[in-house]
């Protein structure tokens, strides 16, 4: 129970109450007086049904310099795992509503954000490779995070004049990078922005360094802000 309490950042009293009430998260124990144990699958199911806690654990993984073990279903250590889980998300969308293909816009922007992390950090991950990718189908929210180098470090290699996170995030979401530039890539986030701007049901939050951007439909100017808590890599929340 102590491990689960630390992992989810929920106090043990709350976990006991949830267990005794047969609610949010059930433990496994041989008798009412023996220790409470949790299966990792139950914790993963709990997170997929409670985005608030999923977001919190993803946040701690992405923003802390320390490493801690994250439930395996959330962690994509390489691109092949991410690809498989993205296909699984797509299959879940199709199962939910077989006649509606608008899900493809969601899976395509998730694909662009997730693959961006792998493309831009290949061989350059500062500590942990890979990304966290989790979602709650019932709450229609998705989180993606990496502990890579972030937008400023990546873009300043081809755009030396960039010195601040806010400048870099603006370039990433607004400027078309020519195919003749040293890096033949860098247009994925422009696509992400376009999809969110053109579809009223899609909202995106993105952070890299101290810079944040919120994208909503029909907004003519990017809403770029600055926050105190810095992330070295990238952090994205998609609502749809």
């Amino acid at each position: 129970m102590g491990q689960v309490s630390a992992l989810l950042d929920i106090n043990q009293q709350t976990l006991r109450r949830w267990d005794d009430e047969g609610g949010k998260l059930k433990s496994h124990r041989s008798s009412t007086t023996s220790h409470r144990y949790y299966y990792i699958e139950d914790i993963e199911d709990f997170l997929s049904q409670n985005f608030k806690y999923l977001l919190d654990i993803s946040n701690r993984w992405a923003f802390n310099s320390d490493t801690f073990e994250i439930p395996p279903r959330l962690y994509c250590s390489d691109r092949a795992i991410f690809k498989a889980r993205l296909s699984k998300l797509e299959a879940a969308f199709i199962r939910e509503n077989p006649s509606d293909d608008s899900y493809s816009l969601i899976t395509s922007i998730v694909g662009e954000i997730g693959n961006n992390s792998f493309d831009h950090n290949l061989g350059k991950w500062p500590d942990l490779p890979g990304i966290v990718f989790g979602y709650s189908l019932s709450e229609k929210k998705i989180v993606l995070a990496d502990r890579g180098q972030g937008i400023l470090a990546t873009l300043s290699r081809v755009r030396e004049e960039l010195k601040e996170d806010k400048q870099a995030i603006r370039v990433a979401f607004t400027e078309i990078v020519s195919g003749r530039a040293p890096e033949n890539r860098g247009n994925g986030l422009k696509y992400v922005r376009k999809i969110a701007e053109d579809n009223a049901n899609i909202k995106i939050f993105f952070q890299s360094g101290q810079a944040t951007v919120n994208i909503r439909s029909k907004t003519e100017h990017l809403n770029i802000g600055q926050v105190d808590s810095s992330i070295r890599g990238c952090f994205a929340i998609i609502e749809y």
Partner: protein
Amino acid sequence: MHLYLKKFGKTLTSREDGREAFAAIQPSLGDDKGSDKMELNFEGVNTFTPSWGDEFLTPFLKKYGDRLILLNIKNPSVIATIKMLEKIHTISFNKK
């Protein structure tokens, strides 16, 4: 030549996979006589992205120019991706 993109999968998202797909199909394209049409059919593709598309469609466009024709542009992510590639490269694909 008529090629179905679903042969490469229904979820076409990463640059790496797009590059591999183009490398895999290249040997079967043969010598271009300068008059052959190349039709790329998107039927059955569930998810498509600019990253995959840029690695696959852009080289096809360079090779075939106006003789490249895109078919079954119906899926929302296919439509949005093609528009984005046209904007990035200031080009226009022939579509049916």
